[in-house]
């Protein structure tokens, strides 16, 4: 029973750690399916984390904070769109620039506004997303097996966690069951064909990049106002890149993205819970667990386990034939 409780706690931690990854991963999914590579996920999350925490700290409203975070992330998305869609610049370079811009700007603005050394003041009650407790969670917690699963694992997360997991079927439905989704996927595979059909390639790509911005905004707000109570410089700590790794691992598919993010989250949670894992004489150091997401991604990329084929027109700016 004790080890079962430990398992539940590790899985609970997995859900929390996987949520920002999942949101960022789905953000990247929309963008890359439309043919716009986005390594600026990290920067957008960071920007959103800062603005959501800053606005929540000033106004005391976490919802205004969320909106501000999404808006900030959208501005960076627009910048990425402008550079890579309208001006047909290199998408990778634009993404790198966004990461640098966000890392510098957040600290600079935070220092100017709050004079607390590039961080926001700590948020109190109304400025944070409180955990949602499901009905009967308390009464059911005594029931063996199902009780802890319901009250510990499913209940007690902030609303953004449930939003993130609901985004998975929503994304699947949009991409594979709607006309918009079909066109969005087509624009990432063969933009010329979409153009021939009389649909705006530029418009579709901007739409995809905007959706990406909204999702990154939610991810950033979750980090700063859901998991934490404020912004600290560089607080995304590489999660945008792990999300990209998860995207490749999932081969650009929504349900697989969820499982990949949960897997990466689980690896982190296990690494945090058990420092060194002793497997009958062989000790797996914690560093190996930390590196595992990247190792798995390289294995997938190298084609050992199926093949990861990115959208065909990914990274290519679309130039209309004359």
């Amino acid at each position, binding site marked *: 029973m004790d080890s079962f409780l430990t398992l539940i706690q590790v899985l609970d931690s997995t859900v929390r750690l996987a949520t*920002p990854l999942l949101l960022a991963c789905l953000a990247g999914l929309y963008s890359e399916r439309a043919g716009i590579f986005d390594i600026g996920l990290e920067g957008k999350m960071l920007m959103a984390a800062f603005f959501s925490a800053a606005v929540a700290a000033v106004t005391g409203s976490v919802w205004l904070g969320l909106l501000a975070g999404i808006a900030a992330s959208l501005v960076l998305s627009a910048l990425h769109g402008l550079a890579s869609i309208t001006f047909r610049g290199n998408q990778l370079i634009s993404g790198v620039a966004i990461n640098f811009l966000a890392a510098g700007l957040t600290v600079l603005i935070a220092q100017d506004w709050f004079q607390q050394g*590039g*961080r926001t003041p700590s948020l109190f009650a109304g400025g944070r997303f409180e955990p949602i407790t499901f009905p009967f969670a308390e009464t059911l917690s005594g029931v063996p097996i199902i009780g802890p699963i319901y009250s510990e694992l499913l209940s007690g997360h902030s609303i953004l966690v449930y939003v993130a997991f609901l985004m998975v079927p929503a994304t699947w439905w949009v991409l594979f069951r709607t006309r918009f989704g079909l066109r969005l996927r087509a624009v990432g595979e063969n933009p010329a064909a979409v153009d021939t059909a009389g649909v705006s390639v530029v418009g579709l790509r901007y739409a995809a990049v905007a959706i990406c911005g909204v999702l990154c905004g939610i991810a950033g707000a979750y980090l700063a106002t859901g998991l934490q109570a*404020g912004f600290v*410089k560089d607080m995304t700590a590489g999660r945008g890149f792990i999300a990209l790794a998860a995207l490749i691992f999932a081969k650009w598919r929504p349900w697989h993205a969820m499982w990949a993010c949960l897997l990466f989250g689980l690896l982190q949670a296990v690494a945090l819970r058990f420092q060194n894992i002793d497997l009958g004489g062989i000790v797996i150091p914690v*560093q190996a667990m930390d590196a595992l997401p990247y190792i798995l991604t390289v294995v997938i990329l190298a084609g050992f386990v199926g093949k990861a084929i990115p959208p065909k027109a990914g990274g290519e700016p679309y130039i209309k034939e004359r």
Partner: protein
Amino acid sequence: MTLMKSLMGAAAAFALTAGAAIAEPAIIFDLGGKFDKSFNEAAHNGAQRWANETGGTYREIELQSEAQREQALRRFAEAGANPIITMGFAMADPLAAVAPDYPDTKFVAVDVSWLDAPNIRQVSFAEHEGSYLVGIMAAMASKTGTVGFIGGMDIPLIRHFGCGYAQGAKSVNPDINVVANMTGTTPAAWNDPVKGSELTKAQISQGADVIYAAAGGTGVGVLQTAADEGILSIGVDSNQNHLHPGKVLTSMLKRVDVAVYDAMKAGENVETGKFTMGLAENGVGVAMDENNAPLVTDEMMAAVEKARQDIIDGKIKVVSYYENDSCPALQF
């Protein structure tokens, strides 16, 4: 116009002579940034105190990447800054490379103790002694018999903190369970409060009810989660008691501010060599103020004071992690 010109000329000449007369000290903050509420901020406070008291000015830079370390050192040395104060163990290698090229410049290396150069003042702290004291308080405050330690980047210095802490806790209760975790192995581990929070939750689920964070910006997440979950935490380097009044048991003070202040005050004539600031020199200690007064009992105060005196008198020997790269009280 001509008057203006001559005035400006005079001002410029004055500025030049002033610059030549007294060399400005310079300080290089480590990657955490000078407002990290911890190690670098303590250094910043020391430098500010010197500036306010003497009216002097100093140069400063906050490093943004590993590659800037040597560059910043050379820049300041070329500009004639003296002494040049560096923060953190990671400056050791760049210092070893740069210091011999500027024999007339004095360097002050905080948290470094193993270099061999005539013009470096190396100041290290007996963090294990201060951590021993907070370990005593943690063990006395714990009701579950389990206390936690969360380190930032996994380096010997942080193990040094954890080792003293575990020894202190075990001196009160030999059966106490010390759970120790490191945040990561890269410098990103200093700025990952999300991971700090998760580690705190993981330690709480293992029974810990007092957690000591020696993790820079990551510690902000540890202290926050500890306060949210209703357990006690212990801050580090600067006094962090005010971050969550009534929820932070104490802070292990590392008087980096004193080290910086002393070096700046001595100026160009700063004494070089190796210096250790321990309990006897008031280089480390525990923070007591109105924020944690309700949490600290008289027995705790007495126990800490006794241990402090015993360590100074040599009656208690706190084993340093550096001695043989292992800890008698804690397995990392």
